[in-house]
């Protein structure tokens, strides 16, 4: 089922539940939401409820949910007309039940937003599966827009992931930091260690989902000072992995645009992908957080840490409350302390 259909479906179920309660128990519903029982509000709630049910039926049963989404929009217009009706003051109890609503309100909003493609700007490909962004002739790269061509497969599936961030340091400084590969684990959460074996070759150790640990050797395939570094895992590595990072001066003296493109195949193949998704380890997200940490390190001297975060990307976190004695936080892969 496509993303849009999933969203339409969830909207449908929402409509169903709300519509039913509005239609069958408008008084209770009105009370629940803090509006006094009065005939005109009851009518209002009933009408909205009826519309919800209609929308629900459409959203849930139709193969093409679009018209039913529009019904909701039409319904909004109806609501607006209802708003024209005057009523006397002092009739609502603002504070009685504020809390009855809320909760996951924002989360759902986000889902709707992503349905609209608002958070889908991080398109991870330009449709040809690999290669660099188009060049505009000045050596500046234009990343694939990704709009309308969101590729389902992620980095673990073998498609390259592209991410960028702007860092308030010169290309030379950012290049130098990155080129010293030992620095990578300071901001790449899944790297435990990178050892440079010689000018070109290095040994990488990473944690994998479910506490697995993987190691491989990589070699630098392209190295243009202050501009670009490319590397890939050597043949017969357990992990097939390649990457390019480009350092482009940002306009307006804002430092350096860091453009990263990474591809890797996890050791466990498609199973690895599934596990990664189940455990919430979205590679795209990881890379953008890695870059965020790189920015923190280079701009401020270290990674920001709160009581709640332990370098994990989880909706459910440790509460924002001081740590127990002996409890420690980690940021990135390395323990807090050394910067």
């Amino acid at each position, binding site marked *: 089922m496509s993303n849009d259909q999933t969203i339409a479906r969830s909207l449908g179920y*929402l409509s169903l539940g709300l519509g039913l309660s509005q239609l069958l128990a408008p008084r209770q519903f009105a009370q629940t939401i803090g509006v006094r029982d009065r005939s005109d509000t009851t009518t209002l709630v009933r009408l909205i409820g009826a519309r919800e049910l209609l929308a629900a039926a459409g959203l849930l049963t139709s193969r093409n949910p679009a018209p039913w989404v529009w019904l909701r929009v039409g319904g909004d217009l109806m609501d607006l007309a209802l708003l024209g009706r005057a009523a006397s003051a002092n009739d609502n109890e603002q504070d009685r039940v504020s809390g009855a609503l809320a909760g996951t309100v924002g989360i759902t909003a986000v889902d709707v937003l992503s349905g609209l493609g608002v958070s889908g700007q991080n398109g991870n490909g330009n449709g040809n599966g690999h290669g660099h962004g188009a060049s505009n002739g000045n050596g500046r790269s234009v990343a694939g827009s990704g709009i309308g061509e969101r590729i389902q497969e992620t980095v673990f599936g073998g498609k390259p992931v592209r991410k960028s961030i702007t860092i308030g340091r010169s290309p030379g400084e950012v290049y130098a930091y990155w080129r010293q590969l030992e620095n990578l684990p300071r901001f790449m959460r899944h790297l435990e260690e990178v050892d440079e074996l010689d000018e070109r070759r290095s040994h990488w150790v990473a944690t994998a989902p479910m506490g697995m640990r993987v190691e491989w050797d990589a070699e630098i395939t392209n190295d243009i000072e202050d501009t670009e570094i490319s590397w890939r895992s050597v043949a017969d590595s357990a992990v097939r992995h390649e990457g390019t990072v480009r350092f482009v001066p940002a306009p307006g003296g804002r430092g350096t645009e860091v453009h990263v493109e990474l591809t890797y195949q996890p050791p466990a193949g498609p199973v690895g992908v599934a596990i990664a998704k189940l455990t919430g380890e979205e590679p795209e997200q990881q890379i953008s957080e890695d870059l965020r940490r790189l920015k923190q390190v280079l701009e401020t001297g270290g990674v920001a840490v709160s009581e709640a975060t332990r370098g994990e990307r989880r909706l459910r976190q440790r509460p*924002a409350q001081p740590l127990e004695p002996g409890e420690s936080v980690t940021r990135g892969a390395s323990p807090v302390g050394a910067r």
Partner: protein
Amino acid sequence: MKANVWTGKNSVEVLDVPDPRILDSRDVIVDVTSAAICGSDLHLLHGFVPTMQKGDVMGHEFMGRVVEVGSDVQTLKTGDRVVVPFPISCGSCWSCQQGLYAVCENTNPNSWMAEKFFGHSTAGVYGYSHLTGGYAGGQAEYVRAPFADANALKIPEGLTDEQVLFLGDILPTGYMGAEMCDIQPGEVVAVWGAGPVGQFAMLSAYLLGAERVIGIDRYEYRLALAREHVGAETINYEQQDVLETLRELTGGRGPDKVIDAVGMEAHSPRPDYAYDRVKQMMKIETDRPFALREAIMAVRSGGVVSVIGVYGGLVDKFPMGSVMNRGLTIRSGQCHVQRYMQPLLDRIQAGEIDPTFIISHRLPLAEAPHGYELFRNKLDNCEKVVLSA
């Protein structure tokens, strides 16, 4: 130590939690002497700001004494008395250099959450959900203050806590609300909400040269405060039609500049209240923008709508046609507190501003939940609660 902890929707409790300690060499630990309850805390209490978690320590408006200093802290030492601004700034990113501290690019460890909600990340904030980083708040005996050099404002002896506490949040917020209006001589400014933020916005509008300031609310005691202490005219929206009255008061022009100091939990005496509550219930709208809608309709053509009331997500029936066709300018933001702390401290020292007039209740930290109850239900003429730890 004792701390005021969010224990679920509509519930805070003072509980024993571990003492904070230095987690980063740029941290200091502050022994909190005073902490306030803010209107934003009510949005958190009511569960309108997503990503709150049971056990989160509340509080983003606080001050105290430095009792421990990280090894890389340059400008502070043990014993310094400080006010700590609510948005955490790194002091070095592009946004911080531009003075946009509340959207600092480096202090929110959960920037990925904020990116999902807002498109781009905002700064870390104390005790203000996990979306803004999951930093433990300052309604507690002690608090860890990260990036201390870039944030803590040293307070000279001789000023009381009550005189300077609000420098960490609502005084700069009200000031920024008025500053965003770009007030010209002879202009009329209307402010929705006569809560602490609205009071400071009205006061600042006068400081910045407004000829007349009109405050709008439904609580008579709050409007009285605005009249008596700030010198504003007032409209009680439950007794008067706001748009009509504003037109009447301004010779039909409408106020030149308007400030929304209400935010996402606005109340309305009209049926649109039911409408927006239904929408919120349906989770296709997160915020109830009555005050904002009204402010937009009220302002004169070409005017400025300054939004300092907090919104969390999506609003419906936003009168964009009015904004566009009448050439309005909307300005908004979580307050870039660091920008205003020193100049406002100077004004307090010079006796030009006395922020203490809004304090209606002084309670020990242990009674924080009672303070929330008073402030949330506007009981006992509650305007602002200050907790002493």
